[in-house]
């Protein structure tokens, strides 16, 4: 099946007073309809900039998408005009953000915001648009949707606001949903609800989801394929089961052994005083990357070859690629 | 880094060109004011009927007013008055306002409530009207003009500082200081006050501009600095209505002076705020 979204060689930079920041370097991936691709990494890895680049929401200047293509059902989003992109945003590709409070307009009712979204892209009468808005609120499992449609964002809880954002994003049944840390700001029980909701709606609408997160648990639960990013580059890519079972890149291995696990689910008994495996050091600044592998300074296996040149991203196992000289 | 003041200055000029520009403007005016008697080419007070309304020329570089007095010299001496009044009023008003805002924000409770209501009442009266009322009741004199301009400043500054203090008070590092057993007094001075200094300085320099304008307006209306002190505002008031078409230099040059000082102080204030933020220091 042809992928719905095909990103190839995407590179985004920022021109700052402190030099050129290579936020995203040569990132490629593809997502099929009904599939969830997770892009995972920590702060400064470039995952959010990647998401914004897909949506062409990067402020230019100081940002600049210097290379690559983003093909949505064959059409390269980076080449269309601004006006065409605006038509595509929301109707073909939509985004939800981490902080629902800042992403929703505090002065408009929730229903009005969905209506606005719908009437922007489809030729519906006011009443039809309003009906669609209430229908979407119901779809995202907000109880009493007609009443809630008349409420303002500040009257709602964080979880509910996130549901509204999802309703807005999916109101026009886009082919791709880009979700940037959609549950990071939510409580654990609400996070579970929202992730289930996104999954259910995805199955119902056949939406392709690009999920940006730093939480490996969320990745394991929701994604089919995973891209791991570090300092602006892709360092590993694989189907989710394969990635967790046989991580090839030392960064991914390091991450997996440094997160504490809820032991009861695995029937393990965690004795106190057991140390977590640490990854020493910090992510390098993006305007001052080391000449070789960006992870080199923190890598337990680093060699001179690693310090000299950045490793190519290549296939290590069937359907499993990584950028490492040593695996 | 033990480099001399010259390279420090060059560094400042590179990082804050606008601020240095503002500082230069202010310095020029302040120096002119301080050394007025030396710098001014002619006596600002001596009248000369034959030179009345002389246009700008070799003798009267900025022209002469209706009494034959040299505009340039009056401007330079007027700088002394206008700047003294503006700086004095700003310092007085900001100082009291900041102290009140700090106390009000930090102590809270009924003290805060009362101060707030008072400030609201004071602010609901326009700056100029308040200044007018105070000068009119206290009588025109240099000192009273300074007081009259300072008083309406107090609630403005107090409110801004208070809201800063309110948010600072909640920050974890203030709580952490209290957790180590520091007295409230010390926490306020060591932790809260320095973090309000930057906004205070910017506010004060912005107010400087507005106090100059207020002084000019008061003098324009005859309620500010009394005769014989030359004041930019009064220079405008004496000439604006009657002579603006026939002798425009009487209006242009004082107006320009006022504008330049306000502009310079604003630029300086913005740059100071950035320079004082340790986050910008590298």
């Amino acid at each position, binding site marked *: 099946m042809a992928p719905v979204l095909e990103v190839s060689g995407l590179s985004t930079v920022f021109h700052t007073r402190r030099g050129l920041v290579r936020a995203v370097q040569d990132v490629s991936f593809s997502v099929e309809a009904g599939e969830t691709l997770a892009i995972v990494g920590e702060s400064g890895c470039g995952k959010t900039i990647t998401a914004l680049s897909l949506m062409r929401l990067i402020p230019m200047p100081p940002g600049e998408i210097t290379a690559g293509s983003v093909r949505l059902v064959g059409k390269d989003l980076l080449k269309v005009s601004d006006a065409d992109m605006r038509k595509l945003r929301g109707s073909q590709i939509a985004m939800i953000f981490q902080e629902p409070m800042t992403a929703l307009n505090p002065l408009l009712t929730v229903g009005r915001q969905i209506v606005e979204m719908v009437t922007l892209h489809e030729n519906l009468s006011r009443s039809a648009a309003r009906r669609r808005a209430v229908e979407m609120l119901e779809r995202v499992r907000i109880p009493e949707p007609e009443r809630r449609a008349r409420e303002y964002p500040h009257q709602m809880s964080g979880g509910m606001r996130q549901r509204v954002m999802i309703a807005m994003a999916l109101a026009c049944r886009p082919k791709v949903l880009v979700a940037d840390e959609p549950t990071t700001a939510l409580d654990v029980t609400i996070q579970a609800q929202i992730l289930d909701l996104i999954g259910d709606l995805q199955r119902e609408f056949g939406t392709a989801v690009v999920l940006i997160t730093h939480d490996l*648990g969320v990745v394991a639960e929701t994604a089919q394929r995973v891209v791991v990013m570090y300092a602006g580059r892709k360092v590993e890519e694989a189907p989710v089961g394969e990635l967790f079972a046989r991580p090839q890149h030392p960064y991914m291995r390091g991450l997996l052994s440094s997160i504490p696990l809820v*032991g009861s689910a695995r029937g393990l008994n965690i004795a106190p005083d057991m140390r977590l495996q640490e990854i020493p050091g910090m992510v390098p600044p993006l305007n001052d990357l080391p000449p070789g592998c960006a992870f080199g300074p923190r890598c337990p296996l680093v060699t001179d070859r690693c310090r000299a040149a950045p490793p190519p991203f290549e296939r290590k196992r069937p359907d499993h690629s990584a950028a490492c000289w040593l695996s | 880094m033990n480099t001399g003041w010259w390279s420090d200055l060059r560094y400042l000029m590179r990082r804050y060109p606008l601020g240095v520009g503002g500082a230069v403007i202010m310095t020029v005016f302040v120096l002119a004011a301080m050394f007025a008697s030396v710098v001014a080419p002619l006596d600002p007070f001596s009248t000369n009927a034959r030179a009345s309304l002389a246009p700008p020329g070799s003798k009267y570089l900025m022209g002469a007013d209706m009494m034959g007095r040299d505009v340039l010299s009056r401007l330079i001496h007027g700088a002394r008055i206008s700047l003294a009044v503006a700086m004095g009023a700003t310092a007085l008003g900001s100082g009291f306002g900041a102290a009140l805002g700090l106390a009000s924000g930090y102590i809270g409770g009924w003290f805060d409530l009362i101060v707030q209501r008072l400030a609201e009442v004071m602010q609901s009266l326009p700056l100029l009207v308040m200044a007018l009322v105070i000068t009119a009741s206290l009588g025109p004199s240099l000192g009273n003009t300074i007081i009259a301009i300072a008083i309406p400043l107090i609630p403005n500054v107090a409110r801004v500082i208070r809201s800063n203090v309110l948010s600072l008070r909640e920050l974890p*590092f203030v709580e952490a200081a*209290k957790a180590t057993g520091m007295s409230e007094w010390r926490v306020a001075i060591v932790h809260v006050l320095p973090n309000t200094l930057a906004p205070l300085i910017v506010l004060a320099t912005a107010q400087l501009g507005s106090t100059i304008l207020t002084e000019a307006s008061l003098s324009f209306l005859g309620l500010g600095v009394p005769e014989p002190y030359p004041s930019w505002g009064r220079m405008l008031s004496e000439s604006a209505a009657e002579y603006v078409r026939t002798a425009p230099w009487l209006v242009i040059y004082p107006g320009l002076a006022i504008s330049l000082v306000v502009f310079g102080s604003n630029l300086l204030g913005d740059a100071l705020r950035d320079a004082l933020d340790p986050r910008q220091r590298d």
Partner: protein
Amino acid sequence: MEPLIEVTDLRKFYPVQKGILGRTVGQVHAVDGISFSIGVGETLGLVGESGCGKSTVGRAVLRLIEPTSGAIKVRGQDITHLPKAAMRPLRRQMQIVFQDPFSSLNPRIRAGEIVGEPLKVHGVGDKVERAERVAQLFARVGLRPQQMRNYPHQFSGGQRQRVSIARALALDPGFIVADEPVSALDVSIQAQVINLLMDLQRDAKLSYLFISHNLAVVEHIAHRVAVMYLGRIVEYADKATLFAAPLHPYTEALLAAVPIPDPALKRQKQHVGGDVPSPINPPTGCHFHPRCRYAEARCRVESPLLREVAPGHTVACHLR
């Protein structure tokens, strides 16, 4: 052995004010009768979601917020009503580390001075001795002494937390309240700071009240765990028991909701619905009943008390 910290029936209510004159029309029960104890060298994990009151508990125990009622004992001494002057020397024994590495440090003061300030406040040593102690503390938390001259903005988030920890350690306290100390940090840095906290505990026999919403981290670092919901403790047990065999429906729901980083283990799909309630308008009876799958009529009406159902394991539920 006598516990280091003993909290009994702690309550903190906030008045709800309406109208111009600010009349009090009600109370928010932010903390509604909490009791626990922490031994020397022990960590109590306090878990819960937003609005449950766990941060308030942490601050109330240190008397950074004044409790409305209840008792707090440190080494047997009741500190609940001590006047400020008497509290001061006691503050040397109990310190706090906050969640946000950015606002925990005064941006205008150098890191070395920040860490040395508690020493200055209590008149410990002269300038030279203090500088030495600060250098020691920096080394202890894994920072270089040269970094003492830096301002907070020159550090990364993880390093700032280390500075906060160094500040908390300055006076050699026996007890530290850690309020979400790693929640704002990147995952790979979290491990560093968690390890640091555990090392410090082992070396100095520190006790922690570790407040967090992250169950995995709590399971790693705590000895005993208390689960809070809307101002009350709903379950309180040692770590192994709580995570292996939770009794309270809310604890079950929490554990079921945590995403597990292992795609081979899918968690069950049925999740507790509803929103995390706000303490301003709590449900009647058992606070959890609107979201509880086992709720009965009794749960709506009567508030369950914490009962010991097994040695060292207390639960507040009618059905257990």
